[in-house]
């Protein structure tokens, strides 16, 4: 089961990277000038947040191959894409709030000093926004770790699936599920303590 826990961590990690990438992209689009792109991003975000994760996973893993045989993803890949894309829509709101929390004056000052919009974002806004979005992002990772259990329903190789497999051929399923629970807890609790300490540390430095 410990190997499966490693797979869970892998799944969490890769999905998180995708989610951060998609989220940043969407947040930047949402705070950009063009209202067409802003609305398109908003639609994407609303759809991603309003659909249950399980439905998204099923659409990618079972639905896409029916549309075209080229779109057959492995259950791990489908889980990463599904959780990553939806995570991106969730993080997009967090990142957008972080970007907007930075004084508008900073953006104006940078532009009037001659920095290009890209440089403004990369060197002025983003570093400050990252400090703001770190705690919510930390909380998101912890949620993501637990949500990987959903991927077991499409048979992605992770802890929950391993627990299910072992439990179905065992005469003590309860013990196995509780053991899986302990492993999940052992993975998530240290993370949540870390996030809490981060929240305290970050709020102290800002006074």
């Amino acid at each position, binding site marked *: 089961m410990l190997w499966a826990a490693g797979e869970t961590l892998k799944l969490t990690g890769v999905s998180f990277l995708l989610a951060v990438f998609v989220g940043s992209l969407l947040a930047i689009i949402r705070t950009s000038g063009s209202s067409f792109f802003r609305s398109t991003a908003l639609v994407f975000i609303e759809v991603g947040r309003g659909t249950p994760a399980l439905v998204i996973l099923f*659409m990618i893993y079972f639905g896409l191959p029916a549309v075209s045989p080229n779109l057959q993803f492995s259950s791990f890949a489908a889980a990463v894409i599904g959780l990553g894309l939806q995570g991106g829509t969730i993080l997009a709101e967090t990142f957008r709030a972080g970007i907007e929390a930075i004084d508008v004056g900073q953006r104006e000052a940078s532009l009037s000093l001659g920095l290009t919009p890209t440089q403004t974002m990369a060197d002025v806004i983003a570093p400050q926004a990252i400090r703001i979005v770190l705690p919510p992002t930390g909380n998101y990772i912890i949620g993501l770790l637990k949500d990987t259990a959903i991927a077991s329903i499409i048979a992605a190789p992770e802890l929950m699936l391993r627990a299910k497999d072992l439990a179905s051929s065992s005469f003590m399923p309860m013990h196995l*599920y509780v053991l899986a629970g302990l492993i999940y807890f052992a993975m998530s609790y240290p993370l949540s303590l870390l996030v809490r300490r981060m929240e305290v540390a970050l709020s102290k430095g800002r006074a």
Partner: protein
Amino acid sequence: MTNFFETLFRVLPSFLPFLLEGAKVAVQIAFGALIIAIVLGLFLAIMLVMRIKVVRFLARSYVEIMRGTPALLQLFIIYFGLSDIGLSLSPMAAAIIGLGANGSAYLAEVFRAGIGAIDKGQKEAAASLGLPPIEVMRFIILPQAIRIMLPPLVNYAVQLLKDTTLASSVAAPEMMFRARNLVMETYLSMQIYLLVACIYLTICIPLSRLASRLHKPNRGAAH
């Protein structure tokens, strides 16, 4: 590609009632779990702020464990695990209890934060004005606390509705379970799951809008 849309529009009417029945079940599960989560959450919140260490420790342990493990796992333990010990529940009951227990841990934190957010000075002022503790709670603390707790609560309720899809894995007859059975029979996976997604979106997006509108008047009222 045209075949895709053909089948989509031809069979859609026949699947819709069946799936909407599932939506009704999902709402039932969510409602039941919400009640349990709120009641249990309130109890836990009170336990979390009590002065007796043992009580606080029990509540804190419950909250940390329920929040540190996946809801799906908790559902499985309640549905499959308990049947070992002789307690067998229907899928819906297991789903309601499981999601409710999970939610209670989350809401306990929301409630605790809401009550704690009310300025201590208010309590002291009310007490010094001669109001008995019960009336202090009823007329001063609770109305303000409820206004603070309402947005996260509504957000939680919407998330809960989406989480009812987990109940499909313990064979509760909600929308996702029905959809999976339909797909097994008809092989129209993309169309059916797309339909399910649309139904969830039509329910959840208006609810989220409601939730964010609950947030805004609070800011206006401060003026």
